[in-house]
């Protein structure tokens, strides 16, 4: 379980980092607010994971000094595309937590997967990417 939780932590860290970059390219107002709210939710999950892993006395990899973007992010369209990709990735990281957890821990992991899928759909709407949903959120596509 530690390994899967560490994976979720890495995904949440990456999401927090990415939203810092995404927000500046979005329209002021509701779009930027949506990015800020998403970043806040990822921070809450990140903090929770740090606590849980500390309780499990698991060592976690340090946050990498830098991330590599999958593509240049320099306008609204690429920022929205990155937001979708980030949320899909967070969903994948949480889905693998489901089989290794039970009860409240599994419920928490399912909330994280579900929230990521819903946020990805919100970003797809703004980006006009169709279909708006994945058939199996969190399932690796490759």
């Amino acid at each position, binding site marked *: 379980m530690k390994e899967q939780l560490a994976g979720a932590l890495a995904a949440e860290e990456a999401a927090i980092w990415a939203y810092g970059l995404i927000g500046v390219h979005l329209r002021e107002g509701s779009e930027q607010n949506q990015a800020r709210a998403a970043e806040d939710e990822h921070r809450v999950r990140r903090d929770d994971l740090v606590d849980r892993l500390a309780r499990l006395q698991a060592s976690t990899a340090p946050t990498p000094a830098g991330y590599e973007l999958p593509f240049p992010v320099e306008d609204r369209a690429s920022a929205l595309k990155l937001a979708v990709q980030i949320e899909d990735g967070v*969903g994948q990281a949480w*889905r*693998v937590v*489901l*089989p*290794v957890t039970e*009860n409240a821990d*599994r*419920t928490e*992991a*399912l909330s994280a*997967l*579900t929230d*990521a*899928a*819903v946020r*990805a*759909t*919100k970003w797809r*709407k703004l980006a006009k990417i*169709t*279909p*708006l*949903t*994945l*058939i*199996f*959120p*969190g*399932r690796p596509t490759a």
Partner: protein
Amino acid sequence: MVLTGSVRMSDSGHTRRRVLGASGALAGLVTLSGCGLFDDDPEPAPAPDALQPLLDEALTLAAAHTRVALAQPALAAKLTPLAEAHRAHAVELARVIGTTLPSGGAAPSAATTGADTAAALRKSEQAAQKTAAAACRSAPAERAALVGSIAAARASHAEALR
């Protein structure tokens, strides 16, 4: 008791989906009346798989999306992928349960409940998300990821229908 009830359901010609759609009280009555009358039933049907309600729900939702898409072509582009997703869920659930899907899929006429609007579909997706989330919580490890993805998909469908 439950087993006897399900035998009666098939005797009466209703599909399980329709009976599940009926109120719990009605299902209880059927079960009660079955207890005394059918004690001699030789081979009660095996208990349904815990994921069977999820599979039935997926087929019902697929049919509902298809029906609304046919009635309101302007919504078809949005609803068709959702119907396809539910059918894909049903295929996976059937594989895991070890059952076969009803041939021809769910008839578009199946289980009309409430108004056929995007708002009604959204409510159905939200209710179905709750079913799937509960099923995920109680699922054995090897089923948790699939059922979790289905719960998340249903939540994202509800968002897509906003």
